Structure formats: C-alpha cells, structure tokens
C-alpha cells in the first residue's frame, strides 16, 4: 500500500509518536498491520464526524433564534422574583375541606386520563394493525402491493392528523361543543393520544423480529393470527410499557386541559392561581408528583410481570 512520505516510518521510528515511545516494540508486526491494512480502519468514522459537524452547524442558529440564554435566570433580579414567587407556595395548604376537594379532583383527573387513554387505545389498536408493514402478506414476496401500500399510508396520514392537533386545541373545540367538564378532556386526550399510540404501536411492531410472523403468513395464516401468535408475544411488554407511559402523560396533560375548563386538578389549580393561593397550588403540585410517581411504579411493575 502506498503511503505519503510523512507516514512512512523510518525503521527506528515509532509510527505513532515519531520517536521512541516503546509502542512499536510491543508488537511491531501487528501495529504495522493496523496502520497499513485498509480493513482495520473503521470506514464509517468520516461519515460520523461529518454528521456531528453538520448537526452542530444546524443547531447553533436555532439556539440564537430561540434566544436560548439560560444564564440570565441567575442574575440577582431574576433570582429575587423567583424567590418571592416560590415563597408564596409555602407552606402547602392542608386544611381538611381543601384536601377533600383535592382528593375529589385528583380522582377526576385520573378518571379523565384513564378514560382518555382507553378511547385512544380503541382508536390506536386497529390503526396500528392496518399501518404496520410487518403484517403485509403482499410484501412476503418482495414488493408490497399498491392497494395495501395506499391503505397503510392512509392509516398513517390519519394518525398524523390526529396527533398533530394538540390536545389543548381539541379540548377548546370540545368545550364549545359539549360544554365545560371532563367529557371534553376525555375526547381531547382520546383523539391526540390515539394518533400517538397508533404511530408508536406500529413502529414497535415493525421493530420486532419479523421471522415468526412471516413464517405464519407464508404457511397460510391470517394477518390477525400472525399478529396474535407471531408479533404480540414479542411486542407485548413494550406495548404495555408505552401505553402506561402515555397514561402518565395523559395525567399530566389532563391538568393542562383543566386550565381551559376540562375539569380535574387543572381546573382547581387554575382557580387557585387566579386567587393567588400559592399554598393551594403547592399542595396540588405535590399530589401531582405523587400521581406521576405512582404511574411510574405501576409501569415498572407491569413490565416486570411481562418479562
């Protein structure tokens, strides 16, 4: 192999440091091979380096554009404002009447999130099954047929549309249609999360090992049978854990939806904020952290069960 002059080591020189670091003495043959052999250099590193540079170049203007200057938070005036605001949160409100209200609204929040995610599941499961290419019979022999391809793309487009509209916007729409209250929250979460769950379900299914599914299809099994006996046993833990994670997101989201009148803890928090009752807000935030922590533990427990 040809080498430029500067890389052609003189017999007494070490190829790495140009002097006598001793590396060459350990196993000159191996080292020479490492330097010379084109097979022992990672051929992918150039591409990797290029992508790193490109992402840095792309990211910088974005940071400038979004005025991302977090150190501003640390100047004395900002710190004073923050401290004053936070001081209003202490101590958390703990009187019995208020706790009773919080308990009722917490339960309502959980109910909104659960009903919303259930609705989302009803939407997402069929959409994901239609959208996933892993259950395509026509692509067994190479290319997917035109009709199945168009159907899959249509399901994908529907899911994009569902999840592109933020649940907040859906909630504003439904508050107009069905009036203030939890129903609009449930509908809003159901639609947006239906789109999200469907997309991720389809991706989880496509990420599973196709071999069992394909074999079942090739032996004359139906798509749903191939799903139940080939894909589901592999994907079940991931599907469950993602659904639980979405349930946790729905709890958080239903709080936000409360601010536009969709009921639950959020609505309560909104009115407390408006009355500048910081300690009530603090109580609700604590309850809220507890809820999310609970969702996290349930998810971990279920994943353990399914492993």
């Amino acid at each position, binding site marked *: 192999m040809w080498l430029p002059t500067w890389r052609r080591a003189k017999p007494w020189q070490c190829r790495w440091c140009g002097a006598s670091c001793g590396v060459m003495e350990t196993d000159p043959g191996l080292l020479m091979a490492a330097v010379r052999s084109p097979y022992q250099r990672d051929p992918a590193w150039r591409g990797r380096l290029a992508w790193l540079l490109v992402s840095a170049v792309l990211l910088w203007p974005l940071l400038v554009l979004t005025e991302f200057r977090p150190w501003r938070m640390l100047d004395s005036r900002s710190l004073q404002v923050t401290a004053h605001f936070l001081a209003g949160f202490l101590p958390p409100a703990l009187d019995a009447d208020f706790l009773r209200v919080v308990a009722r609204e917490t339960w309502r929040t959980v109910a909104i999130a659960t009903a919303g995610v259930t609705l989302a599941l009803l939407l997402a499961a069929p959409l994901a099954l239609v959208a996933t290419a892993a259950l395509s*019979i*026509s692509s*067994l*022999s*190479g290319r997917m*047929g035109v009709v199945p391809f168009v159907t899959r793309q249509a399901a994908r487009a529907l899911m994009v549309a569902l999840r592109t509209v933020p649940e907040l916007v859906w909630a504003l729409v439904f508050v107009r249609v069905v009036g203030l209250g939890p129903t609009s929250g449930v509908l809003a979460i159901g639609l947006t999360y239906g789109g999200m769950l469907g997309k991720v379900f389809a991706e989880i299914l496509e990420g599973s*090992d*196709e*071999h*069992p599914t*394909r*074999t*079942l*299809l*090739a*032996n*004359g*099994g*139906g798509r*749903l*049978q*191939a799903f*139940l*006996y*080939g*894909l589901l*046993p*592999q994907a*079940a*833990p991931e599907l469950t854990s993602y659904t639980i994670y979405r349930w946790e997101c729905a709890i958080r989201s239903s709080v936000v939806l409360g601010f536009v009148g969709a009921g639950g803890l959020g609505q309560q928090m909104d009115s407390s904020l408006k009355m500048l009752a910081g300690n009530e807000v603090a109580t609700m935030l604590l309850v809220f952290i507890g809820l999310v922590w609970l969702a996290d533990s349930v998810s971990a427990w279920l994943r353990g069960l399914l492993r």
Partner: protein
Amino acid sequence: MKATGSSLQLEQVSVRYPGEASQTRPALADVEFKVDGGEHVALVGPSGAGKTTLLHVAAAALRATRGRVLLDGQEPWALGSRSRQQLRRRLFLAPQVPPLPPRQRVVTAVLAGRLPAMSLASSLRSLLYPLDIGAAHEALEPFDLGGRLFDRVDRLSGGERQRVSLARALLAPARLWLLDEPLSALDPVRATRALQIVRQRASQRGITLVVSMHQVDMAMTHFPRLIGVRAGRIRFDSPPSQISPEQLRSLYEREAPTPEPSDVAADVETGETVAVPMVWR
C-alpha cells in the same frame, strides 16, 4: 384413510434477488423438477447452493424471476392474493432458524401450526386457554419434548427449538412439508430419530416431503430420491443407488479460486446468510 399429498412442479425457474448486479450468478438458474403427491425428496448441496431459495420459491414465499411453480397444478402467482393465501395453507414451510417468538410458551408455539385451519375466534380463545393441549403434547412427545409443554421458548436450546418447529409441522393442516435443514442443530442420534419421525408421519398421512440437508449420508440412507443443487443449478436428481461418489464429490468440491473479483466478494456471492434475510425482508 390416506389422503394424497400435494404435488409440486418447478418449470425453468430462475431467481435473481432484486438489487443484485446482473453479471453475478442468479440464486437459481433454470431449475426444473416435479415431486409427486406423497413423494419424499432430499435436497442436498453446499452452503449457498440455493437450497433455501428453492424451498421458498416452492412455498410461494418468494416469486421466481422467471419460470413457473405449480402447486397441485395451480400457479400461485397467477391467482388473486386471497386464493394464493388459501393455497399456502396446503404447505408447511419450516425455515432453518426456528420461527418461534422467545416469550411464547411451547404449547402455543406448537399449536400455532394449526392456525391456518382455525377461525380467528378460536385462535383468540386458544391464547386464553390452549385449545388442544393433548394434540400439542402428542406432537412434542416423539421429539422427547413432552415435558417442556409449558416452558417458554427462550428456555429451550437451539436443538430443542428446532424440534418444536418440527412438532409444529405435525399439527399443520398442510399436504406438503418443506423443511429447511431441520437437523442442523441436532446431534447425530437425535437427527436420525427426528428424521425418522418426520418421514413416518408424512408417509402415514400421505404428505409430500421435501427436506434440505447437509448430512448427505443420512439423505442417501433415508430418502428414495435426492436432488443435488450447486450454484443455483440442479446437478443430479435420482435415487441414491444411481448417485456415484464422483457426483457427490463434485457437488461439494470447493470452487477453484477465481482471480477476479476479490475473495471477499466471492464469499458474499455464495453465502447463504445473504440470501436468507433478503427473503424474509
């Protein structure tokens, strides 16, 4: 009562995987043979000869670039997709790597062989409670796996998984079994026994059997007909008594090193590992 197995006929079948340069040799070239209903045939040949591709083409899991495949006289690719899927029920293709999801239980994996004959409702019910535990046990027992019925597949060894995959064949409603190297992970004693069981069950029910394998001596002693494949072409197709040692030697002979293209490319070209993922993509 003995039903007849499905017949299989390949006419001038050539397969070239998409994306492969046209100057490389095709995976199969002008393959032609006929297997009658109830016949037992062994496919032999070196790795990368095209045995797997041949089985996939026969199973209508892969479409031939040229030529025709006839299953019971019907051409799968001339049918609509629904009738083709119905036709696929007549065959059972067991890929070399057992197609078993790791978290599934053995009983479910074995009963999955019956799916083509089951309605969606009963396949759902069978997930709640296995519908025919007795049949699953009966299929596993000859392979010494009766005791592993309720174990998970990921607890099994490679050889055990391969035998579960064979037990699944016993439950399939198929009339043609296409087994791709079903003995590759089995020790010699188990391999002989497994082959005997498969052949015996196939004869009892009149099922047509095509098995690809590396153990030529076993193929010679157990099968009434051998098809030798090398470099995508059929080298011989005859009863073992008519196969000469020279024919066998030339079947497995290492290719003379070619100066061009480089060794790496030659390995890729003949490697079966390349062909399999292409099929299952």
